[in-house]
């Protein structure tokens, strides 16, 4: 049966190829057994979880590989009415910033936590690019557990890359700007004088994952783009690509492409730690939000931090070195051994590969080509292991298979190129459809890649799917890389826009102690309703607190009277279910808010300000049982100053009052 299905799918794909007219004959790139390789039968699990940035949606999506099935969209930086994220009273503080409540961001990259250079399945980190933030998602709950804002930054693009034990997750500013403690009201053309870069090192507590902005490096004003930690022999170092060393503030498309070479910035963060121990850091005033989710109160808190420890790399020697890298480097990727650093100049037609050993020697020998704003610039040849010649056009990102090969995406020539690191020779190339950005191999950034699949995340979708008006689904493509030749096996659409992604073997995540329910006995929410006997409605001035419980299939209470126009009503809904996959929903007519989705054992609060007198139905929004459609109730709203007494009931109507 399986054989017949696969053959049919393959035949359909082949037929499509015959009749379509696509650039590069894209259909024929799929060979006969592709469908079988991407097929995961009903009732079977995928082999990998794939955590994909949702780009301008602000969220993170989770797909199964190799099926490309969407498993979940985790709300991170943007509000999500479906899950009540940013709408429920408990989640609102998660989106607090020094600019107040910010309901959206642009999530670019994902980074899974590591232990000893391997993915450990505890957390996945994500960067907010617009209002600079860093988020930690807990992989036991698939929920955003923490968000920290980054001061002195603008455009947190060079993030959230981490070290081999997740000692630090970094956050490098894309835009250089005047520091937060200085007057930012200066002429834009004073860039060279007033604009500075800041690289944040955020530490991650081993057990809890709690993040702390440990220190920032203050650098010359340039644009920081991407980064990777050293590993193995280069553990203790971090590498950041930077562009706009021209320090342009306008028409960067032209003005930041003037120089033949920009830099990869090598950071000795162990040295930075030594300076901090020696008291060389400077505490600088800053204001940034630190938002944490509490799993026992089911609520977030937001704290405004007041200062940050800053190390000025111009004053403190031996922390930072610049390595020239051709043509506005974008990707800056370190191979599994930690020896090779691959720079990808997005306007270049070659790939330079730097050697960690040679960089160390160049520093020891002071093999410098002068300095850039006081930072030593290592001679290109002194750091270079070699160049991959004519690999393609516009290299962007590189991942590794742990078998001596690198895979680099080429935006301009729209392809993935596999090359041998030692020989610097191209081994295989395969087209993508179209204009690939990031690519991802499970563990492809770590010491131990799991090289079965490679996923390309493409910037242009064009003719890959049925047209949907001017805007099309975003597009990813899976390649089987288990053999010598890469083989395209599946296209799958994603939410927008997929930048970077990381994957982990399914077992690492599903066996990590996944939470299935919140134990009702451990619910410490201040407004919890532990059992229907405790359901009640309490008035405090113009605030009305409804302690409500839900279970298949009724709310308690479900008739409420005595609410008045001008009241603020808080529905604190506790889901009394204790079984996996039985959430209840809650919605009330006219609420200028969203629904609640309440997990088993959880308490969640919807704030509602009724604007006019009348009858307001409420109901469960998440299908829960055969009697789900019966799971409903009424709230009577009377005019301000009304004498209707506050009353509530379940099972028998509230006594009639006029």
């Amino acid at each position: 049966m399986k054989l017949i299905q696969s053959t049919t799918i393959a035949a359909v794909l082949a037929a499509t190829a015959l009749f379509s007219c696509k650039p590069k004959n894209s259909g024929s790139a799929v060979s006969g057994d592709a469908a079988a390789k991407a097929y995961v039968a009903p009732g079977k699990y995928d082999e990998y979880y794939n955590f994909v940035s949702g780009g301008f949606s602000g969220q993170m999506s989770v797909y199964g590989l190799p099926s490309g099935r969407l498993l979940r969209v985790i709300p991170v930086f943007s509000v999500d009415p479906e899950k009540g994220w940013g709408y429920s009273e408990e989640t609102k503080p998660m989106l607090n910033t020094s600019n107040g409540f910010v309901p959206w961001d642009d999530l670019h990259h994902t980074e899974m936590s590591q232990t000893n250079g391997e993915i450990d399945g505890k957390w996945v980190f994500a960067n907010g690019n617009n209002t600079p933030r860093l988020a930690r998602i807990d992989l036991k709950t698939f929920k955003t557990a923490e968000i920290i804002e980054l001061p002195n930054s603008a455009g947190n693009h060079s993030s959230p890359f981490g070290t081999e034990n997740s000692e630090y997750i970094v956050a490098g500013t894309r835009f250089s700007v005047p520091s937060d403690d200085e007057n930012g009201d200066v002429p834009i053309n004073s860039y060279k004088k007033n604009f500075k870069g800041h690289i944040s090192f955020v530490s991650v507590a081993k057990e809890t994952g709690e993040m702390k902005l440990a220190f920032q490096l203050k650098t010359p004003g340039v644009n920081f783009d991407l980064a990777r930690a050293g590993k193995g022999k280069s553990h203790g170092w971090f590498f950041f690509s930077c562009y706009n060393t021209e320090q342009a503030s306008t028409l960067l498309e032209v003005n930041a492409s003037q120089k033949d070479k920009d830099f990869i910035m090598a950071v000795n963060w162990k040295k930075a730690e030594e300076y901090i121990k020696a008291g060389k850091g400077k505490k600088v005033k800053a204001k940034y939000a630190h938002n944490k989710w509490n799993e026992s109160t089911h609520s977030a808190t937001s704290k405004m931090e007041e200062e940050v420890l800053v190390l000025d790399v111009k004053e403190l020697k031996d922390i930072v070195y610049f390595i020239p890298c051709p043509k506005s480097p974008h990707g800056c990727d370190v191979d599994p051994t930690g020896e090779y650093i691959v720079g990808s100049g997005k306007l270049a037609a070659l790939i330079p590969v730097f050697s960690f050993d040679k960089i160390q020697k160049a520093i020891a020998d002071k093999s410098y080509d002068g300095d850039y704003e006081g930072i030593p610039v290592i001679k290109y040849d002194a750091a270079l292991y070699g160049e991959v010649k004519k690999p393609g056009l516009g290299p962007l990102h590189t991942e590794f298979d742990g078998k001596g090969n690198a895979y680099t995406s080429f935006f301009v020539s729209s392809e993935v190129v596999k090359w041998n690191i030692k020989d610097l020779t191209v081994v295989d190339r395969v087209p993508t459809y179209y204009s690939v950005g990031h690519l991802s191999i499970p563990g492809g950034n770590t010491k131990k890649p799991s090289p079965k699949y490679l996923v390309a995340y493409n910037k242009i979708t064009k003719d890959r799917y049925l047209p949907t008006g001017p805007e099309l689904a975003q597009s990813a493509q899976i390649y089987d890389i288990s053999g010598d030749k890469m083989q395209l096996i599946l296209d799958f659409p994603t939410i927008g826009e997929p930048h970077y992604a990381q994957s982990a073997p399914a077992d690492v995540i599903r066996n990590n102690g996944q939470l299935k329910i919140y134990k009702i006995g451990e619910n410490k929410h201040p407004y919890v309703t532990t059992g229907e006997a405790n359901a009640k409605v309490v008035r405090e001035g113009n605030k009305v607190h409804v302690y409500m419980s839900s279970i298949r299939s009724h709310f308690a209470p479900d008739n409420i009277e005595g609410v008045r126009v001008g009241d603020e009503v808080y529905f604190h809904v506790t889901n009394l279910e204790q079984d996996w996959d039985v959430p209840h929903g809650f919605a009330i007519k006219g609420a200028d808010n969203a629904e609640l989705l309440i997990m088993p054992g959880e308490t969640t609060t919807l704030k509602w300000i009724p604007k006019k007198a009348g009858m307001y139905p409420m109901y469960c929004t998440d299908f829960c049982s055969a009697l789900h459609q019966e799971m409903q109730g009424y709230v009577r709203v009377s005019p301000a100053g009304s004498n209707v007494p506050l009353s509530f009931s379940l099972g028998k109507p509230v006594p009639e009052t006029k």
Partner: protein
Amino acid sequence: MNIKPIAFLLIAATTLAVIACGGGGQKADSSASSAQEAPAATASSPSDYDPKRGEGKFDASNVTVGPLDQAMAAKGESIAATKCNSCHKMTEERLVGPGWKGVTTRNTPYWIMNFITNPDPMIEKDPKVQAQLELCLVRMPNQSLTDNDAREILEFMRKNDGAK
């Protein structure tokens, strides 16, 4: 949520009693792990099912009842208030599920403890439970009771039924 109980429930009520589900499927891809968790059940087919004992951890050897233990019943009462009484009244009156009055006279102690700790397999197999499902139309949820919780709730049910 992903599983829509109504569809499953109606099918279960009408056909599952005859046709056993699960197991025996063809392995489509040896590299993909199976989504089917091994059932918590010990009995493997309806013919092995003992309607007096139910299915689960408990039987005559590990559940004994004696004179009413008031302290244990009080603990059971408090757990039931949170996890059970939204659907079950202490009288004979049916709310979402059947009233609890008389439950300990109709069932063995270990049947009760099996059902409240392991409802899903029993909903599929037990004739009495299936008859109740046709009346109530809501599957009894698994409320994640510990073994102790279950024993204490049993004691509370016994007290409600007049055990001394």
